């Protein structure tokens, strides 16, 4: 195989459509006779529904129907548990999943109570205030630690408490080594929630064709195939009669993998009731309540080290806020447990969490998916240990890295994919050294910082490491085919939310087939085109679907060579595939175009050999036994104004290792975008709930997404440690940029201010909060 395209910085196949406004997003679907839905949502975080009267709304101009839970009959069912509990010994797990419309009780602000369907969105919204709903408020609980107190208001009556889960994972024996430690660092660390905030809100368009018995759903989902399968089951339709299309999606970042959202369950049902297409598009305010959120965890952690700063063990006990329902199971706290270990040798580890139901919106993964709080804990404890032992922060990391010959490395605890946490490969020191070199770490500390300090400027540096488990199973598939026109089609099941799959998958196939990247027409996320697969999550698209594309393209290449060998009367070994033709290497005038081979592979008359498969087409699947572990080092220089506590991130460096890179431009874009998200999580973005679990900042006026003036230029470089666990050697890259930003920011801010006693042990910060911490440290000093 020539590798002309894999690894090349090719510009993207999809860009022309996106740049000219020709790409189809869900809200762009316009159908004849289409109706519009709007949802009545709870204003209270916890309340009993005592009365619900929709009669006035039904009379409102343009309204076609209003539905409540009572109208759904047998169709009203709690959603599925998406991720069954992982096989951890003595695990306690209580599952309560979201419902299509609240029946007796609401458990978070924004929980849907009724849906209005009208001729226009305007008319549907006009009718919402005409619904008479009486809600008797119940005491609400916002704080996950308070939720576990014995007298906390009970959110799910079927359980004895708000405990959603309890799990302990252990390796080695932490208790036995803690007395031998030269230093034990114990801290309480707090990590709060943020929103994923893709620029495109969620949306669903559902259209029932009664005569064909066919349901078509356009959905902003990261998982169209499981949505298709689930809808078919719920609606009693054959899977082949349900088509779910995730067209261009305006960013996902995790919450669009959640399923089933109430709207995804209801819109298909409504179109079957009414026989007309129906559209629902979430508005921005709704998205702050109705779309899942992430990252609230409270940790009590300790790190035991020897006199040289070598890790003897870690003990971490934390509370995880699941929100009002827990359909995503334990993926997030388990990711936290596993990712906390980072790139380090940790011989003894005790990790225990309790998951709590709260009266806040549902929690499911957002870019990083439970990894941020774990990385925050470990990196902060290492920083503090380094300070107390008088070791440089780089040096303590260097002393604890797993060496390059330690792989595959089995940590012996259970990961989110229900298997033991195994790192496939890694080489951590070169990334640390390269990042230090790029940001000029030592010169900054030795020369630049003292000089700036003399000018009265508070400028600091930080450097941290992390790993990210990516590319987990179960599997994805792809089909590559060539039409008689010579056109190359590639279809795969994963959806695309901006990652460039239309290009990177085309690069993989183009190398096998000897065509240009732009000649491969890629379709993703349409169950009508490919209907096996799971979805886009866990930085797995390039790894799992990418390897499936490779396998399918290799199989098609074989098929082309065999057919061409017959047609050209040559041995397959003597053939090459060039520019859409198969030809004899030594006699290139003896050639046949792919299109012609496709015609001959699908004869209209005559006989074929028994066992012949028609068409120039191949389908293949890839399922890795284990995921691949990416890693990296981030470094930052930040200036802090001690009077206002405003910060200015002046430099940002990322050295990242995601194994073999398909398209360096796309990977760089993913990394830098992740950093921007991470910077938001450090200093700008916090979902602020009051004691009644009422969200205080549900708009882009109040919830701050970093803008172009908030995000610094980011310099990136790459270390390549291929994964031995997949044929292409790829590791995932989509989430990495956002993962280590919080501890990096904390370390750099402390380094800038150098106020004794100032420890940043919570995220996100804000100018106000940093100022408070600064004042408290100065007072204590």
């Amino acid at each position, binding site marked *: 195989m020539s590798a002309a395209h894999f690894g090349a910085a090719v*510009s*993207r196949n*999809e*860009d*022309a459509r*996106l*740049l*000219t*406004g*020709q*790409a*189809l*997003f869900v*809200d*762009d679907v*316009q159908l004849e006779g289409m109706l519009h839905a709007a949802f009545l949502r709870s204003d209270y975080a916890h309340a009993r529904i005592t009365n619900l009267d929709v009669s006035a709304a039904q009379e409102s*101009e343009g309204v076609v129907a209003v539905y409540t839970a009572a109208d759904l009959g047998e169709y009203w069912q709690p959603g599925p548990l998406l991720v069954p509990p992982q096989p951890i010994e003595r695990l306690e797990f209580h599952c309560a999943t979201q419902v299509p419309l609240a029946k007796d009780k609401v458990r978070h602000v924004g929980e849907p109570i009724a849906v209005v369907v009208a001729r226009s*969105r*305007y008319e549907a919204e006009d009718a919402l205030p005409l619904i008479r709903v009486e809600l008797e408020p119940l005491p609400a609980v916002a704080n996950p630690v308070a939720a576990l107190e014995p007298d906390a208001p009970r959110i799910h009556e079927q359980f004895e408490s708000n405990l959603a889960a309890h799990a302990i994972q252990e390796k080695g024996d932490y208790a036995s080594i803690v007395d031998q430690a030269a230093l034990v660092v114990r801290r309480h660390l707090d990590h709060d929630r943020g929103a994923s*905030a*893709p*620029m*495109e*809100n969620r949306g669903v368009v559902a259209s029932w064709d009664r005569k064909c018995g066919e349901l078509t759903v356009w959905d902003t989902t990261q998982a169209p195939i499981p949505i298709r399968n689930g809808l078919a089951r719920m609606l009693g339709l054959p899977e082949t009669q349900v088509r779910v299309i995730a067209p*261009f*999606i*305006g*960013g996902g*970042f995790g919450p669009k993998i959640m399923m089933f959202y109430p709207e995804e369950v209801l819109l298909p049902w409504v179109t079957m009731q009414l026989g007309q297409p129906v559209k629902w*598009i979430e*508005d*921005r305010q709704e998205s702050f309540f109705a779309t899942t959120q992430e990252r609230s965890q409270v940790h009590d952690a300790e790190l035991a080290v020897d006199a040289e700063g070598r890790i003897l063990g870690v003990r971490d006990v934390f509370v995880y806020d699941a929100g009002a329902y827990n359909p995503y199971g334990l993926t997030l706290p388990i990711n936290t447990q596993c990712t906390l270990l980072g790139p380090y040798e940790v011989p003894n580890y005790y990790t225990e969490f309790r998951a709590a139901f709260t009266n806040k919106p549902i929690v499911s993964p957002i870019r990083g998916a439970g990894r941020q709080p774990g990385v925050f804990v470990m990196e902060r404890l290492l920083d503090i240990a380094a300070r107390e032992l008088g070791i440089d922060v780089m040096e303590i990391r260097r002393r604890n890295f797993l060496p390059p010959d330690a792989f595959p490395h089995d940590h012996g605890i259970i990961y989110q994919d229900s298997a033991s946490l195994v790192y496939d490969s890694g080489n951590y020191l070169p990334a640390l050294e390269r990042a230090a070199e790029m940001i000029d770490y030592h010169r900054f500390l030795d020369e630049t910082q003292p000089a700036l300090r003399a000018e009265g400027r508070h400028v600091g540096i930080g450097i941290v490491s992390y790993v990210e488990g990516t590319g987990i199973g179960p599997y994805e598939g792809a089909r590559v085919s060539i039409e008689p026109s010579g056109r190359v089609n590639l279809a795969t099941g994963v959806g695309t*939310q*901006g*990652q*460039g799959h239309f290009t990177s998958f085309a690069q993989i196939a183009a190398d096998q087939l000897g065509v240009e990247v732009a000649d491969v027409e890629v379709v993703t996320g349409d169950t009508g085109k490919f209907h096996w697969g799971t979805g886009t999550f866990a930085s797995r698209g390039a790894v799992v679907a990418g390897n499936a594309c490779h396998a399918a393209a290799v199989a098609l290449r074989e098929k082309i060579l065999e057919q061409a060998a017959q047609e050209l009367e040559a041995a397959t070994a003597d053939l090459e595939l060039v520019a859409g033709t198969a030809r004899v290497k030594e006699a290139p005038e003896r050639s046949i175009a792919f299109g012609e081979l496709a015609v001959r592979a699908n004869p209209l008359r005559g006989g074929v050999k028994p066992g012949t498969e028609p068409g120039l087409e191949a389908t293949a699947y890839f399922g890795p036994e284990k995921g691949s572990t990416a890693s990296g080092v981030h470094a930052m220089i930040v200036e802090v104004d001690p009077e206002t506590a405003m910060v200015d991130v002046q430099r940002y460096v990322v050295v990242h290792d995601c194994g073999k890179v398909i398209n360096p*431009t*796309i990977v*760089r*874009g*993913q990394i*830098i*975008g*992740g*950093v*921007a*998200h991470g910077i938001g999580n450090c200093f700008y973005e916090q979902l602020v709930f009051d004691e009644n679990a009422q969200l205080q900042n549900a*708009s*882009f*006026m109040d919830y701050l*997404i970093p*803008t*172009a*003036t908030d*995000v610094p*230029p*980011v310099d990136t470089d790459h270390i390549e440690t291929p994964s031995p666990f997949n044929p292409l050697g790829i590791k995932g890259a989509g989430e990495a*940029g956002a993962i280590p930003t919080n501890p990096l920011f904390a370390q750099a801010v402390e380094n800038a201010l150098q106020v004794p006693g100032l420890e940043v042990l919570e995220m996100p910060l804000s100018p106000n909060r940093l100022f408070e911490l600064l004042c408290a440290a100065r007072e204590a000093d």
Partner: protein
Amino acid sequence: MRELHAIQLTVNGVRHERSVEARLLLSDFLRQELELTGTHVGCEHGVCGACTVLVDGEAVRSCLMFAVQADGSEITTVEGLADGGAVPDLHPLQAAFRDAHALQCGFCTPGVLLTLIPFLEQNPDPDEQTIREALSGNLCRCTGYQSMVEAVRALAEGVGR
């Protein structure tokens, strides 16, 4: 039936006459009445900038304006930037965005392009900070903005022309 108001306006060089409700947002008018769905709606409260279009040459958030307020005006949407055809001839700014990988999901992109076009007319050779300030009213969750800045710089420097 609510009262309707007759409006006439020119969008991407094509004249349209319609009767609309007073409350119909310009963004909804463009997307639903004219089926120009390249204009995207991201927040409907004027912060994200995805719905930016040109009204009489100026960048305007179409979610903060009623269609009736656009009566008599000349509007450019993202569909009006490139010459049509099966393979569109991209506007130089669009080409610069493609070449610099300045878009990922592409949802915010139409609004960003239409913010930058009048900006570049007034600032043909902007420095990085000026570009960042020009972009600061448009939210993007994918790119971290850096590649957008690079696209504008490349265009200003005439790279690839």
